[in-house]
Every structure is written in structure tokens, then in C-alpha cells.
């Protein structure tokens, strides 16, 4: 159904981003609260408006932009991530030298990029979205102008990101060569002979490399720890959730038809299988050795990309989206705690800085433990149910051996997540210089919201699952 109105959610967000830019250009500095407020209002507005299209499968530009139900749910994830990150930035920006209104504009543009990626059926448009996202991200990573690590992060991200984009474009060219089209609808209807041709396979692998970079699959993950560590913490929270969600949904859309067992070129699932296993194993093993919690979370996010690839491989859209949603809450929650552990341009993210946190800030320590337990996949948290859905579906699709690799990898992860808790609860001596922002109401609100999300998704997710189920049915029509 063609409807110009379905473009509105996207337009609202881009317009708000432009307005913020103008406000910043003609404003006099000072508080950036109005900018932030506008960003939040735009994100909420876009979200609510997009939900009015739920179940309608509206779209525009003859299939290049389709606001199907999956896209709407993804909008919800992006907007939530966007709102939480905007609020987190407000609590941290003054102290950490990125007190500029562009933050919000760039965040909104990045969210717009994500939305384009999630809602397009055309690979070229998806690429467009990816670039919108990437360019905003490069700038966001380097926001702390005085900080060497931040600049290093931006450069690294930019160089490697451009390389990945190049691979992606080359891959698209190969696919076009075989399919004579870049529309996902037409690729879906290719004959199995076309799908099995080496040219197409090379194209797919190059596309996989391009997106593998974005979602941090091993061996395309090298940028992740450095960028995560260098970027301002709220921005890292965004990088680890938003782009990951969009990347995986695009992968799902591209590979969904191709992985249908009767069609799939035999070697392609194997490649994904190996990537997924490698990602889980390497991510978790390297995380074991990290002394810095921010880096640790970076490696853990690599490991989670591995679990998510399991969902791609078993064509499990429901599990994938649920996982992304759960991951959003637990990861942003954990980063919010990291934001709390900082002051005046200093960040206290070494493991030893967490010593005795449970005595100084019991609520923050308890929330952090909850997020870590959720990341490790303990019930009754969202992380457990997310893993549960993904893995059970994978076993049903006959990927038992991959699931065994996955659970063993997550056993390893239990160790390093628990180590943070050991430092918070079981090591007594308190480092003197560590400041804790335990009283910032906005920060506490974010943490509380994430705790609520983690527990709600872990205990009573029936409504959400029902919604997902409805949304997926629109996907299978493809």
C-alpha cells in the first residue's frame, strides 16, 4: 500500500535533527536541555505515529520503503535506544567535554539511518541508510575533541568502516550481476540455480563482510573494543544496541529467503555457522582477560553478536527481535551504571574501581548485578528468555551442535560477568578517588527503566511475544 504518510515518522526525526542543528548554530551555548527535550519529543512522536501503521504494511517509493510490522518494532527499539541515550548524554555531557547540541542532531540522524535500513526492501536504499548511520557514528565516536582515545576511535571507526562499506558495495554489484535487481522481493524469487551460482555466493559473502563489520562478527570485530572504549560512554551504549539491531535485521531480511533449506547454496549456511561459532568463542575468551569494564562489555557485545547469528541461521525472526529488545535494556542499563561511575572528565571503569561498590551505592550495584546476570543469561531476566527462545528455535531447526557451542561459550561468559560482581560485592577495600553519581535523578530514572525492562521481559513477556508473532507473520509473506 502506498502512503506518503508512512514516511512521516522518518521525516519527523530528520526535521527535529535539522532544527537542533539550527538551534545550535544560532544559540548562545549554555544549557542544551531544550535540544535534548526536542530530540526526545521527536523520537516519542515518531514512535507513536509509526505504531498507527501497525498491521497495515504501508510503504512508499514502490517497495523501496516499507513500513511493515517488523520495521515498526525495530523503530521501537531504535527510538527507545535513542531516548535512553539522549537522556544519558544529558547526564554526562557537561562533565565529559562533549557539551554540544550536535550530539542530539547526530543521534537523530543516526536513528534515521537505522530506520531506513530496517524498513527498506531495496539493497541500495539499505546501503544509503547504512551510510547515513555510519557518517553520524564516525563523528559521534570522536566527540570528545580533547581526548586522544576518542579521536583514535573516530579515525579507526572511519577507516575500517569505509573499507567495510566498500566490500558491501562490491557485494551488491556481484548480486546485481546475477540477479539483475537489488530488490529483496526479486531476489527472493530467484531460481535455485541462480542462488547456487558462485557469483551470487561471492556477492552474499561480501555483503556478509560489510554487515559483519557493523554488527561486530569475528573476524571483523577488531574495531569494536577501541571504538567502544574511546567513544563517550552514552554513545557507546548507542553503538552497542542500535546499529547492532539494524544490522541484524538487514541480515535477516537478506538471508531469510536464501536460508530456506531447499534453496540454500550448501556452503553458505556453513560459513554463517563458522562465523557464529568463532564470534561466540573469541568474544567470550578475550573478554576473560579484560581489566576494563567498558572493554569487557565491548567483547561481551561481540559474543552476543554470535548468539544473534544463531537466530539468523535458524531464520528465527521472533527470537532475534526479542533478543535485540532484551539486549537493549540490559546493555544500556550496564552502560548507564558506567556513566554513573565517572566525574569531571574522568572515568572509573577499571575492574578495581568497582571494588566495594555495593557498600557505597547499593542500588546501583544491585542494578548492575541484575544487568550482568541478564547478560549472562540467568533466569528470571530478559537475557535468559532471549537466549532461551533463540536456542530452542535453533535446536528445532537441527542446529544442536551450534547451540552446544553457544551454551559452552556462555558458560565462559558467566565467569567474567560474575567477576565484576565479585569486585562490587566481595572485595572490601574501596578506592578513594572513585566518585559515584548515585544521586542524579535522571540517571536513576534510566537505570530504573532498564531494570524494569529486564524484569518485565524476563517475567511477563507474553504481550510482547504476541506482538512479535503478529509482526513476523508479515515477514513470512515476503
Amino acid at each position, binding site marked *: 500500500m502506498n502512503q506518503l504518510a508512512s514516511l512521516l515518522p522518518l521525516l519527523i526525526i530528520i526535521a527535529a535533527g535539522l532544527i537542533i542543528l539550527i538551534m545550535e548554530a544560532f544559540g548562545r551555548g549554555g544549557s542544551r536541555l531544550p535540544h535534548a527535550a526536542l530530540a526526545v519529543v521527536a523520537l516519542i512522536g515518531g514512535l507513536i505515529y509509526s505504531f498507527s501503521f501497525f498491521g497495515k504494511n504501508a510503504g512508499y517509493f514502490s517497495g523501496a520503503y516499507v513500513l511493515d510490522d517488523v520495521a515498526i518494532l525495530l523503530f521501537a527499539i531504535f527510538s527507545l535506544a535513542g531516548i535512553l541515550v539522549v537522556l544519558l548524554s544529558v547526564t554526562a555531557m557537561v562533565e565529559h567535554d562533549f557539551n554540544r547540541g550536535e550530539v542530539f542532531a547526530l543521534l537523530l540522524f543516526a536513528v534515521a539511518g537505522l530506520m531506513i535500513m530496517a524498513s527498506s526492501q531495496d539493497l541500495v536504499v539499505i546501503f544509503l541508510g547504512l551510510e547515513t548511520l555510519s557518517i553520524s557514528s564516525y563523528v559521534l565516536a570522536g566527540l570528545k575533541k580533547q581526548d586522544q582515545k576518542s579521536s583514535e576511535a573516530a579515525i579507526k571507526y572511519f577507516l575500517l568502516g569505509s573499507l567495510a562499506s566498500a566490500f558491501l558495495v562490491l557485494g551488491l554489484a556481484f548480486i546485481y550481476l546475477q540477479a539483475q535487481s537489488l530488490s529483496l522481493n526479486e531476489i527472493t524469487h530467484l531460481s535455485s540455480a541462480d542462488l547456487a551460482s558462485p557469483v551470487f555466493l561471492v556477492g552474499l559473502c561480501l555483503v556478509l563482510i560489510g554487515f559483519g563489520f557493523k554488527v561486530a562478527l569475528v573476524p571483523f570485530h577488531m574495531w569494536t573494543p577501541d571504538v567502544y572504549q574511546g567513544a563517550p560512554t552514552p554513545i557507546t551504549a548507542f553503538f552497542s544496541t542500535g546499529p547492532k539491531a539494524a544490522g541484524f535485521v538487514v541480515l535477516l531480511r537478506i538471508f531469510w529467503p536464501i536460508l530456506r533449506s531447499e534453496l540454500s547454496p550448501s556452503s553458505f549456511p556453513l560459513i554463517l555457522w563458522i562465523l557464529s561459532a568463532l564470534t561466540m568463542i573469541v568474544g567470550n575468551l578475550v573478554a576473560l582477560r579484560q581489566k576494563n569494564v567498558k572493554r569487557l562489555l565491548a567483547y561481551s557485545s561481540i559474543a552476543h553478536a554470535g548468539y544473534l547469528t544463531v537466530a539468523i541461521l535458524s531464520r528465527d525472526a521472533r527470537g532475534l527481535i526479542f533478543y535485540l529488545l532484551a539486549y537493549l535494556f540490559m546493555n544500556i542499563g550496564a552502560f548507564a551504571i558506567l556513566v554513573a561511575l565517572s566525574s569531571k572528565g574522568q572515568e572509573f571503569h577499571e575492574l578495581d574501581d568497582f571494588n566495594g561498590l555495593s557498600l557505597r551505592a547499593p542500588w546501583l550495584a544491585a542494578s548492575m548485578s541484575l544487568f550482568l546476570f541478564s547478560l549472562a543469561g540467568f533466569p*528470571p531476566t530478559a537475557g535468559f528468555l532471549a537466549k532461551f527462545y533463540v536456542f530452542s528455535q535453533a*535446536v528445532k531447526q537441527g542446529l*544442536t551442535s551450534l547451540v552446544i557451542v553457544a551454551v559452552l561459550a556462555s*558458560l565462559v561468559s558467566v565467569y567474567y560477568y*560474575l567477576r565484576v560482581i565479585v569486585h562490587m560485592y566481595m572485595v572490601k577495600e574501596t578506592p578513594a578517588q572513585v566518585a559515584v553519581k548515585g544521586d542524579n535523578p535522571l540517571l536513576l530514572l534510566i537505570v530504573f527503566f532498564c531494570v524494569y525492562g529486564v524484569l518485565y521481559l524476563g517475567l511477563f513477556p507474553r504481550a510482547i511475544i*504476541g506482538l512479535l508473532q503478529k509482526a513476523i507473520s508479515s515477514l513470512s509473506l515476503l
Partner: protein
Amino acid sequence: MTFLPLAGAILLIFIPKERKDIHRLFALFVSLLTFALSLFVFSAFDASRPEAQLIEKGMWLGYGINYHVGVDGLSLLLVLLTTFLFPVAVLSGWHYIDQRVKEYHIFLLFLETGILGVFVSLNLFLFYVFWEVMLIPMYFLIGLWGGPRRIYATIKFVLFTMLGSLLMLVAIFVLYSYYYKATGTYSFEIADLNRMVLLPGVQTWLFLAFALAFAIKVPMFPFHTWLPDAHVEAPTAGSVILAAVLLKMGVYGFLRLAIPLFPEAVARFTPLLMVLSLIGIIYGGMMALIQKDVKSLVAYSSVSHMGLIMLALFSLNQEAIQGSIIQMVNHGLSTGALFLIVGILYERAHTRLIKDYGGVSRQMPVLAAFFLVCLLSSLGLPGLNGFVGEILCLFGVFQANKVMAYLAVTTVILAAAYLLWMYQRVMHGPIVHDYVRSFRDLNLREIVYLAPVVVLMFWVGIFPNFFLRNTDASVQLLLRRVEEHRKVFVLKDKAVQPAIILPADYSQEVKQAASAVFSSNLTPEVKEAK
């Protein structure tokens, strides 16, 4: 009932942390209330019905994941044991736990919910959730209030348990997908899954995954290494709960899941499992003999006693299984009590080494009396509870395998040796260390929590039937199901389908029913051959 402790824990969060006594009293009150409720369950329980009773059921997540709890003869006594021991555990830490009193009680009550949940779950998913949830409070209990090597011990405990339970999770998924393939519907209900008969090859792998999880928990012989560490480092209440209740979850897992779900695989692995149990009995006993630390001595004695329980379980006959259930309760009582007493001694002397004591009975005659009773109960003196369980277990094992039974009797001899020798060195003899002279005997609080345990020991010892009769029907049903389940494999080589579902009522004609289901997928030649 399950969630009452959790509700209590949540309320505790809101009591300010300076009011330590209020926390203690409130936790005691909640755990006593839970115990009272479980007594009500006990009295409402109808011993003649084999299936689960007092059921609560509600939709939870859909796709076969329901909130479904109830008790039957297999779980009733364990539920009672759990609720009985928690007030005792709360009392035992009354003064010893002086830091973070609030968190301590929150975790303790949280743990109680987790354990009760495992025992009453009738839905496999729910079972798994509780099984895992229970790790979190235990992790904190050992890690926060434990001894010097507590962090090593607690992480070892969590990782060992997780290793088993994650592989079990994969097996659960496989089971679930087989059920879906066989029926086209989703179900995690244990009762539904029990009706499914899988091919022996599949059963083997699934059984191994389940068995690993449970064997680690029990712990059976090569998987026991976490136990002494966790026990030695845990605070008294932690050790009591760990020994008395947590270990039982492993045995219960075999009883509730592994045996009825995979009888064919159980039959195949019985020799191996029995030999491992036997090694556990003898090895645990030997290790206990040479321990210098009282607490690790009791810990190794647990390994030995749990070996006997497992041996009885795999004998798969009425006496043996009933014996192992009652022996689980006995072991909970006697080992729990021994840990309590070790805790009392530790509070006075701050050492657990046997050589640091000696002649304690002169200063503490009341403790000496309690200690002796618990000891004798643990080594199976007639008239006390241990005797009933051990004799039933050994009878059962004897029916199954005579050689095993002869060797298993060593458990009694070894127990007598290491326990009495330890008692002699700790309680009798001259007073070597001066600080022993300053020991005060038990105070009222300590007597209040030891006395009920000892009373129960006599009660079970003298009137075992009061407890045992509750298990009759359920054990019979379990054994009958296992038998009927295995009858299906008369046809095993001809089956095309990987899984079939037995009729709900387990009719006597199970063989015909099974062959009817199978035959729809049999090739014509096989049909003729039949």
C-alpha cells in the same frame, strides 16, 4: 507457598538496614510461616493418590510454558524438609552474621523460593528457571559471608553447576522439539513429556546431558570436587542448606526427570552409574577419614552418603527408591545438624581444625549430647532415622545386585570410623588448648534450633511409616511407568518415527497402543514380519 519467602525478601528490602534485629525476626517469621503452610500441605496431602496434588496452574508464556506446580509423593517430604530447615538456618546465623544482615536474609529467603520452586514444578521450563535462579542467592551467600577462599569456592560452584545445567538446557530443547514433531503441539509439561517414548539412541544423549547436570549437583563421584570447597567456605547456614537441601535437588532431578523420561537409557547406564555411586561411597568415606578440618570431613561424608542414595535410586525397585527418598530426608537432617554443630564450635573457637579442639565435652555437655545423637543418626544406629533409610536402601540394592550391596555396606563401617574418631578427638580426651576452657555451653537459641532436628531424627527413626506411606503410591506409579515405557522397545528396531506418544492413562495395553502408533509408519515388510 513457594513465593511467600520471595515476598518476604522483597518486603525486607524496604526495612532500613540499621534495624538488624527486625531483619532477623522478620526472616524467621516468614520462614516459619512457610513451614506452617507446608505443614498444611502435608496434612492436606492424600497419600493414596499417586499423581500430583494441590495443583496450581496458570498460563505464563504460552507455547507450553505454564506456571504449573503441585506436590506428589516424590516431592512432598523434600518440600517439608526444606521449609523445616530454613527457620533453623535463620536461627543459626543470628549472631554470627553481623555484617550486611539485611542482604543476608534477603538472599536466604530468595534461596528458599528457588529451592521450593524446583521441588514443586510440574513444568520443565519452570523447573529449569527455578533450578538456575537458585544459583544466584547461593552464589552471594557463599561469596559474601564465607571463609577466606570464598570467592574461589563460589565461582567454582556456579561454574560447575552451570556447565551441567546449560547442557541440560540443550537437551530440554531437543526434547521439546521432538515432542513438537511427534504431536504438533508445544508442551513443557513434565506429564506430557513423560508420555513420549524416544528411540534408544536419542535417549542416550539426552539422558547423558540431564545426568551430567544432576550428577554434578548430587554430586556423584568424578564431579564432586566443588563440594568440599563450597562447604568449607560457606557460612553455617549456607552449608546446612547446601548439604541438606541443594544436594537433594540432584537426586530429585533423576527421580522426577531423568528416570521417567529416559528409562531405556537409564537401563543402559545403570551399571556405570552404580559403579560411580559405589566409588563415591568408598572414596568419600576414605577421604573423610583423613580430613583435618571438621567441616570438610562432614562434606566428604556427604559424598559418601549421597553415593548410597544414588546407588539405591538406580536399583529401581520399590524399597530402594522409597529408601532413597527417606534417606534424603535423613541425610538432610543429620548432615544439616552436624554442620550446625560445627558452626557452633566455630563461633566459639574460630577454627575448624580437629587438632585445635579436644576435651570439649567437659565444657559443653549439652552440645556433646546433641552431637552424639546427630552422629549416631548419621552412621545409622537403629532407633534413629539413618537406620531406616540405610536398611531400606541396602535391601533394595540387594535385590538388584548382591555384590553392590555387599560393597555398599562399607558406607556404614566407614561412617562409623570417621565420625566416631572425629568425635573422640574433638570432644573427648584432655583439654589441650586453654581457650577451650572458656567455651560456654549452648544457649537457649542454639538449643531451640537443634532440638527440633533431633526430635525429628527420633520420629523418623521410630515411626518411619508416618513419612514413608506418603511416598508409596507415587513410587509405584513411577516404577510402573518405567516398566510400561520400556515395553515399547519390543518393537525398537522397527520404529521409523523417532518419537511416539503413549496414551494418557498408561493403559495396561500399552504395548498394543504403541505398536498401533508405530505401525502407521512401518514399511509393509515389517508389518508382515509382525
